[in-house]
Structure formats: structure tokens, C-alpha cells
């Protein structure tokens, strides 16, 4: 909250777009503004009406360097925009740095994301220290089509204006905490000696030489990848990771998605009855990759680029009582299977489970 808890005394607010950036079509700017305002009106009783040619509560404009509000912009990057807390005159106004590369997608800076954040200030919110919150100070891209207002921001704005009038109260995603004992994972893969744990739109990154775990948005590394990755594995020989969601998969090399992807998973040899892959890991020493789907698994030969004959087989038949597999990866000769909050350490040589841990055992909690 902003000190002094400034808020608008009315719920029906007005806004006006004073000028436009030449870097985007006016219709796209209008749409970005409309969508950004709906982020907040969807979760509160607030309404926003567009006005022309007169003073509005929230005046939105693109400004250049010193624009006479004692807060000059600093050119490309750095400070992208700012907004003022509720109040008369400049109160509630949003200023966007004209020298930024404003876009409606993942290139440059997404206008919708920045506007939604600044409008949080216009309504009385200050910055949040939750790295997944919209009101976190640093810019981070999320595909506007996938954007959901996080719970931290919903809690903040509803503490000021109350809940939405909607019959069903909206809820939002929470930010995963590495040491949350209830933390489960969508997918896990190794990558050049590190381990990446995927969860929703986030990935927790664990470097063997660093004690702390780094939390990032998937989009920070791969803006074109969707959230909610369901399976992943590393092909060490090709220095690639393969990521799966529903019936598609992507091949990623470093920061780049290999052109031509995503492709249907059926190219790998899955029957059409398979709709998604739950987990995968690859055994570098044998060149075999194991895919886990429900209670069965397939084995893929990376050299022949085809599924081995005799599959699928029952997971329990060859890996023991590990139940459904949410995520898996291989490290230092052992395979780690994750099922909800439990992790099984499997020895492929002895063909048996040799350890059972909590899912968060890698995070030095």
C-alpha cells in the first residue's frame, strides 16, 4: 500500500489517452489501455469510462525526458514509466517513456503489461516484493493472452476497494516458494549442469555451485514458450532440451527455439490416443529417452529417432511403486521421479528404488 493509503473516493473513474506513440497502431494502444484497466475492474467494484477533451481522473500520456513533473525519463530502458497515486490534478496520471520500444507482443516492452502495473499505482498500490506480482518493480513479460492477475495484487487492490461484485470471486496464481513443503512440479530437466524445475509460468533454477535457488518466469528465457510445461528432458549430446505441453513439443537450444517447432508429439511415434506427456528423462549413456504417460511409459531411441518396439509398458513393471510420474530427470546415474510432494531415487542398474525424499530436497531448505 502507498503510505497514507490514498484511494479514489468514487468507484466510477474516468480515463483519457492524451497522446499516442508512433511505435504502435492507435487501435492497439486503445486495446492495451482497455485491457489494462479491465485487469483491475475485473477484481474490484471499480469502473472506468473513457472521456475525450476534458480532465479525467487518470490521464495517460507518452512523455519524453524532462516533462515537468520533477521525474524526468532516462531514455531507452531503465525507467519505463511512472504513475501518481490517487488525487487531484496529476494524481492518478500515467506517464510512459516515449523512448521505449512499445509493442503489443514479447518484443521490446509490452504496453499492456507496463500500463496494468502503472494503473495499480494510479489506484493506490505501491510496489510488491513478491517477484511474481504485477506490482513487482521490475519489468517481466507475460503473454497478454495468458495473463492472470496474481493473488498478491488481488489481495492488495481488494484491501483498498473491496471485492468484485461478481458472483464468483476471481482468484489468481501464487508465486512458488522454493521451500514450500507442498510444492509440486509440472516438469523438470537438467540443462548444462543445472536443474530447471517448471511450475506454471515459473521455473526454479538450481545451479550446483550456488546455495540459493533462482526463480524466473519461463518467458524471461523463452518468451515464445507457453506456461504450464508438462514434460521436459535434456539431450546432452545435441545440447538441446525438449519441452512438452499437450500434444506439442518444442526443441530449445540455448535461448533459441529451433525453427519449425512446436511439432506434434506423434512425430516421435506416440499413438493418437496419447494426448499429453506427463514426464520424460533421457539416459545419456544409452541414448534412450523414457516418456511417461499415465501408468505407462515409452522408450525412444535418440539415434534411430524412433520408439523402441515392445512399448508402452507398465511403469510399475520396471520402475516399481512410484505411481503416476509428474516429472523426472536423471543426474549422476540416478533417475529422480517426482509424484506430488514425493520424490523417488531410482537406480537403473539395480533396477530398484533406493531413496525417497521430499520434492523440495534440491533447494537446501
Amino acid at each position: 500500500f502507498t503510505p497514507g493509503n490514498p484511494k479514489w473516493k468514487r468507484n466510477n473513474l474516468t480515463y483519457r489517452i492524451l497522446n499516442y506513440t508512433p511505435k504502435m497502431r492507435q487501435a492497439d494502444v486503445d486495446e492495451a489501455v482497455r485491457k489494462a484497466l479491465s485487469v483491475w475492474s475485473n477484481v474490484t467494484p471499480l469502473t472506468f469510462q473513457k472521456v475525450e477533451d476534458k480532465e479525467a481522473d487518470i490521464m495517460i500520456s507518452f512523455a519524453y525526458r524532462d516533462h515537468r513533473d520533477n521525474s524526468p525519463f532516462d531514455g531507452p530502458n531503465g525507467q519505463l514509466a511512472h504513475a501518481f497515486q490517487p488525487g487531484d490534478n496529476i494524481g492518478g496520471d500515467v506517464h510512459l517513456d516515449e523512448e521505449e520500444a512499445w509493442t503489443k507482443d514479447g518484443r521490446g516492452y509490452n504496453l499492456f503489461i507496463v500500463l496494468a502495473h502503472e494503473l495499480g499505482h494510479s489506484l493506490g498500490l505501491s510496489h510488491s516484493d513478491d517477484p511474481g506480482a504485477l506490482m513487482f518493480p521490475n519489468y517481466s513479460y507475460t503473454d497478454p493472452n495468458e495473463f492472470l492477475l496474481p493473488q498478491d495484487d488481488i489481495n492488495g487492490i481488494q484491501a483498498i476497494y473491496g471485492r468484485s461484485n461478481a458472483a464468483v470471486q476471481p482468484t489468481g496464481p501464487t508465486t512458488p516458494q522454493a521451500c514450500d513443503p507442498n510444492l509440486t512440479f509440472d516438469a523438470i530437466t537438467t540443462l548444462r549442469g543445472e536443474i530447471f524445475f517448471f511450475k506454471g509460468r515459473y521455473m526454479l533454477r538450481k545451479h550446483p555451485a550456488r546455495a540459493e535457488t533462482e526463480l524466473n518466469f519461463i518467458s524471461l528465457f523463452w518468451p515464445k514458450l507457453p506456461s504450464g510445461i508438462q514434460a521436459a528432458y535434456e539431450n546432452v549430446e545435441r545440447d538441446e532440451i525438449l519441452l512438452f505441453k499437450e500434444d506439442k513439443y518444442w526443441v530449445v537450444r540455448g535461448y533459441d527455439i529451433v525453427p519449425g517447432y512446436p511439432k506434434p508429439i506423434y512425430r516421435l511415434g506416440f499413438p493418437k490416443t496419447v494426448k499429453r506427456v506427463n514426464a520424460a528423462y533421457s539416459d545419456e549413456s544409452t541414448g534412450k529417452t523414457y516418456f511417461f504417460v499415465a501408468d505407462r511409459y515409452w522408450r525412444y531411441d535418440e539415434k534411430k529417432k524412433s520408439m523402441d518396439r515392445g512399448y508402452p509398458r507398465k511403469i510399475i513393471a520396471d520402475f516399481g511403486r512410484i505411481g503416476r510420474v509428474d516429472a523426472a530427470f536423471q543426474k549422476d546415474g540416478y533417475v529422480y521421479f517426482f509424484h506430488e510432494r514425493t520424490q523417488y531415487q531410482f537406480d537403473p542398474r539395480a533396477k530398484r528404488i533406493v531413496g525417497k525424499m521430499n520434492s523440495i530436497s534440491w533447494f537446501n531448505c
Partner: protein
Amino acid sequence: FPVAPEAEDDGKTIQLVESYLENFYNLQRNHRPHLRSRDENPVVAKLKEMQEFFGLQVTGKPDPDTLKMMKKPRCGVPDIGQYM
């Protein structure tokens, strides 16, 4: 000025840190500490406040992780205090 041994030891770092703390953590522009003051160096104090906010290790020094965070594109509203 406390500088972590691995940090770049040039004016640009100092300028980045000071302007970041002035813009977003209310570091007063005339923040030269008084020689006999018992108070913690204001820059160190503000650095710690910023490191705590971002979940960084609170070292009070401009270590690489802290400088990396300060270089990220962000909102111009301060992280503390009002914005009027």
C-alpha cells in the same frame, strides 16, 4: 565507499548505485556521512533496504547480483514512500 572486491571499481558503478538509491529508495542527494557520525553509512543502509526488498543477500555492498538487479528495466515509481 564499500565496494565488494569482485565488483567493477569504476565510477559507473558508483553512479548507478547512487542514482538507483536516490530514485527508488529515497537516498538523500547530500548523503555524505558526517565523519564523526555513529550512524551507518546511508548508502550501505539503503543498499541493504534494496537488497532485502528484492530478496537478494543483504550484504550492504554492490555485489554482482545487486548490480544485475539494478540494471533491469523497471517502473519509475520509488519502492518506498509516496509518489506525488
